[in-house]
């Protein structure tokens, strides 16, 4: 059984290497256009050169920071609004139709109004990220707080637990799995919007980097930028998964 698992793992590795090797071979044989599909080795060389020159870290940091600020604002607001809509029948009646209309709007659709209000600035980028990334958290938080077991509320009432400690100690932990699902989707959206808004507002970052690489036909650098963005997406998702595992470790204890 164990040997088989290792065999498939090695097979998976071999497959990935084979794909890259095939690509490299086709590129070396000039069967692939070097402008559109630069070979993996050239991409790797460009990535190394960028890392050594230092013009990778600055933009990557700028993109990460923007993404983080926008995402953090969206998460905080999303949880608060979602929780209050879930807890108040009046808020549900008055606000839900408005939110239902806003939600399916493409997140990027607020870029033009944001440019009108804030200009091509860093603030505009962060605002766009926050607005676009808020919906999954808001919905997750809403569902989470709505589906708190009513018996928990009864017990809390019986024990005369006040509203604030009840929310913090009972409702929030119970809603946390749903919130986390939303927060993870939000982070992916935040990364996409960071790239998009950077391109639009010409704010230095990875998004602008790859656009500039394209404009000057430096395709290995373009591919290197795409690889870095992929890694960034992977890492941020893994970090959140780890946080989720840690914060929700009590769930496995119950089961």
């Amino acid at each position, binding site marked *: 059984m164990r040997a088989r698992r290792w065999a498939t793992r090695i097979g998976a590795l071999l497959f990935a290497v084979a794909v890259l090797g095939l690509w490299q071979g086709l590129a070396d044989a000039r069967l692939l256009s070097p402008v559109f599909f630069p070979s993996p080795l050239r991409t790797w060389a460009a990535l190394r050169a960028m890392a050594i020159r230092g013009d990778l870290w600055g933009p990557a940091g700028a993109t990460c920071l923007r993404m983080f600020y926008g995402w953090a604002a969206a998460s905080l607001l999303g949880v608060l609004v979602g929780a209050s809509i879930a807890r108040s029948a009046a808020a549900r009646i008055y606000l839900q139709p408005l939110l239902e209309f806003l939600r399916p709007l493409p997140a990027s659709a607020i870029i033009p109004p944001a*440019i009108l209000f804030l200009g091509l600035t860093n603030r505009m980028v962060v605002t766009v990220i926050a607005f676009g990334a808020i919906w999954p958290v808001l919905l997750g938080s809403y569902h989470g707080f709505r589906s708190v077991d009513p018996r928990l509320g009864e017990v809390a009432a019986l024990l005369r637990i006040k509203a604030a400690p009840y929310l913090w100690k009972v409702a929030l932990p119970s809603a946390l799995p749903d919130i986390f699902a939303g927060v993870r989707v939000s982070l992916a959206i935040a990364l996409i919007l960071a790239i998009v808004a950077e391109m*639009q507002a010409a704010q230095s970052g990875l998004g602008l980097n790859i656009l500039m*690489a394209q404009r000057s036909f430096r395709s290995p650098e373009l591919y290197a930028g795409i690889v870095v963005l992929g890694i960034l997406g992977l890492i941020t998702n893994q970090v959140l998964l780890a946080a989720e595992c840690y914060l929700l470790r009590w769930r496995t204890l119950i089961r």
Partner: protein
Amino acid sequence: MNSAISASRGALVPILLVALWELGERAGVLPPDTLSSPAAILSAGAEALRDGSLLWGTIETFETALGGLAIGTLIGVALGAPLGLSPVMEAIVGPTLDAIRPVPSMALLPLALLIYGFGARMEIMVVTFACTWPVLIVTVSAVRAIDRRLLEVARALEMPPLLSMFRITLPAALARIGVGVRVAAGIALVVAVTTEIVLNPRGLGYDMIVAAQSMRPDLMWADLVWLGLVGLLFDLCLRWIERAWLSRYAAGPA
């Protein structure tokens, strides 16, 4: 009766906001060069509807969204079905796909521009990339969940693999694949509009960004509202199709 009351209450907040907006605009409190007034927005929208630019933009946007969705669905099912049938193959190919998947679709924008230049094709490429993943993932799990006995029947009948794929495997997984396609369809519209806003000079997204840059806030807001309405309608259509589809395929003997 009850729902009618709550619906009218739900309309209260938007109506109040719009009324306040109009009043603020008339009183000169709100900036006319960014917010415009609801009346001006309405007339700009009516104008754009009359001269056909709104409809034309919508057609262009949906052309690429649906084109990319179709190609992405084909690729997703074609890749996903064999992976779902064979766990060994999935273990071998899966990690490579997992390594490509976290790449944000918008990171492909410059690449698509490099390959195809401006126009419908570059947009379709980006939409295709974004739509392939949800369909692929759902297809793998849908095919894996097919009743094993069905596949054994195919083997007992000595069906050739392609025939058994089209006659047995795919029909059995179709209902769940439809769910993945619905998710992908929502993504397709968003990606198409985003591509137009950022780079591609066509469709509704481009109309919006041009209106914003040429200081026509009234037209920009009209486009935004239109986009919201179209998006809502599209979502309703998808839900309706999914329900019709599911009732047809899920009703058969399980």
